[in-house]
């Protein structure tokens, strides 16, 4: 799960890093992606891993539209005001899911969702392994994209210094749109990887927004490497804690880690450059 947490948080961190806006509809966007992927699987029979690119593209467009229609208008507002439209967007998306797909828990059985293999007495779950590996690969791809490509460089420039970026002729509005869309597409990919692992229902988005938020704060706001490492720490902590604590205390564990990190590194593990 760590890799997936990292991926979801990466999207959130990217959006925050560039625009300073916290996407409170993040988990709901992921749920949308899960439903799109579910649809593609049920209607066309395409396995979620194969439809990943299509789903990411769909959510990319959704993110682009949200940014250009909504978020760009509120960038200069006080932070407390920025929260409201995005929380509302989350509610709208959640209830759209309720309207279109109903409240039932859906979990299609894909070709690989039950595959496992054993190394000695250790069970390896194939879909978890794929999810983890793909999550890491996608993260690396996004790093490369931001480091090497022109758009990536513009995104980093806009994140570093918005005024400076405008001065050197970067169309910051368009860059904002692209970064938000990229952040949304990243979380969409995470959703698709989750589909074979857990049932989807309209109400699961909140939990993931919260988890992503914890991870981002742990790793340092807006720091992409921090998001990945934070995600891994949280994933490992949650699964090992179950061995000696009741599962109902999972959230206590993740929040305790958050508090400990906040005590010793208030800027987050990798934060502090800004």
């Amino acid at each position, binding site marked *: 799960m760590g890799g997936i947490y990292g991926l979801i948080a990466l999207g959130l961190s990217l959006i925050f890093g560039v625009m300073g806006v916290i996407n409170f509809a993040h988990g709901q966007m992921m749920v949308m992606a899960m439903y799109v992927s579910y649809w593609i699987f049920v209607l066309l029979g395409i396995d979620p891993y194969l439809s990943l690119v299509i789903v990411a593209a769909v959510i990319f467009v959704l993110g682009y539209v949200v940014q250009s229609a909504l978020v760009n208008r509120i960038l200069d507002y006080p932070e407390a005001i920025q929260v409201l439209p995005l929380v509302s967007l989350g509610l709208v998306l959640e209830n759209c899911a309720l309207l279109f797909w109903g409240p039932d828990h859906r979990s299609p059985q894909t070709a690989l969702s039950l595959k496992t293999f054993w190394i000695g007495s250790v069970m390896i779950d194939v879909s978890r392994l794929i999810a983890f590996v793909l999550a890491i690969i996608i993260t690396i791809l996004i790093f490369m994209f931001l480091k090497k490509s022109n758009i990536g460089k513009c995104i980093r420039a806009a994140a570093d210094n918005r005024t400076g970026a405008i001065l050197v002729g970067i169309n910051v509005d368009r860059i904002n749109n692209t970064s938000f869309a990229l952040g949304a597409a990243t979380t969409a990919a995470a959703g698709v990887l989750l589909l074979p692992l857990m049932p989807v229902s309209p109400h699961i988005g909140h939990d993931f927004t919260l988890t992503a938020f914890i991870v981002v704060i742990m790793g340092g706001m807006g720091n992409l490497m921090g998001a990945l490492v934070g995600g891994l720490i949280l994933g490992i902590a*949650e699964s090992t804690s179950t061995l000696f604590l009741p599962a*109902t205390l999972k959230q206590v564990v993740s929040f305790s880690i958050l508090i400990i990190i906040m005590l010793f590194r208030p800027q987050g593990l990798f934060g502090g450059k800004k």
Partner: protein
Amino acid sequence: MSEKRLSMNGIDRRTFLKFSGVAGLGVAASTFGVPKLLRAAPPTIKIGSVQPATGPLAVIGVGQRRGNQLAVDYINSMGGIKSMDGAKLELLLGDSESKPEIGRSEADRLIKGGAAVMTGPFQSGVALAISTLCEQRQVPFIMDVAALDKITDKGKKYTFRVFITVTGLLNGGIKYLKMVTDLKGVMPKRAVVTNTADAFGKGMSGGFIKFMEKSGLPIEIVDRVQYPLGIHDLSAEMARIKAAKPDILFPVSRPGDGIILARELYKQRVELMGIYGPGSPGWYEPDVIKDLDKLIYYVMVNVPWINPKSPVYQQANAAFQKAHNRYLDTNSAYAYAGVQVIADVIERAGSTDPEKILAAARQTNFKDHPVVGGPIQFDEKGDNTGALTALIQVQPDDDLLKRVKIVAPQEFAQSDKIVFPAPQLWER
């Protein structure tokens, strides 16, 4: 300046008035439109129904309303309450939003609006709040669904329950477990109980463990695994379950975690004789059956259930499917039965006077209902002595909707075979 501000938002006074007028008409039409026809035929008898129509239990709440309404429509189409010159029934709708305090104020509103009898409310917490109110207002409260025993404790005079109590549910769970082990001549030795850590999950599984200890069955509960409602991942929990080496699993689940449990059992190759639900959802919903396919075969659940053999159910189910394109599930069927009982009581009372309704309710002996159980009769606490659970087992069938089969009690059974122990999940 202010004008500019307004037009920037794209709304001026006229547009606002226009839209609010349309919205107002819409609301008015939806609230008063349908009952208006009914009001024309005097007199009408108002039944207040408070259900969780919005919030996390919205699916169920809407289903409950539909069940109530279906019975009202049917009774009206058959000529209404004959002892009161064919008086028609009218359903007043309240929405508890799944919260007790709101349920109470909604019930209060409906009583002020003239409800002669109250029904609902699916959740025990809401039921407690409404029953207290009904005692104060002296309005009979005939609950369709709500299970907690203590709702009818403390000598409440106006409160009756068509549904089964938690004690009844747990007794059924033990009774059928004994029946299955006797019938098959096999006895699991070690068991693990799992439950969601919400009020229902904790209470139900805690009660089940206590009842198991008293039951005299030689099954040792070696571990109890609790996890939060809405969990995404049970792999670590399943490792713990596997380490406990159980022969049987007693899950108290909610829709969603049943799917994860079954798949993890498969992936981690946990060897079991079977899965036996003491009384919880998560194992019989059409979507779950479809998604889990072979993995859910042979799961047994003790649950208050519909009676597909009864003509009442068949008739109601056909009407329900025509109207809502869904089958009449067990909760909606209980909502249907609730209104049926209310109509029967008023018919015999011949009046909406609360005292006459109470007297008639105590004499209730109602057989033509759509659920598994004997005739509905109320004991001195107001609980239904005819309430029964059924034991259902998911069995292979080409028709997805027919895979859930009643295997006990005998007179309601749809399948005469019970599969236990079940083949291991990965050998199917």
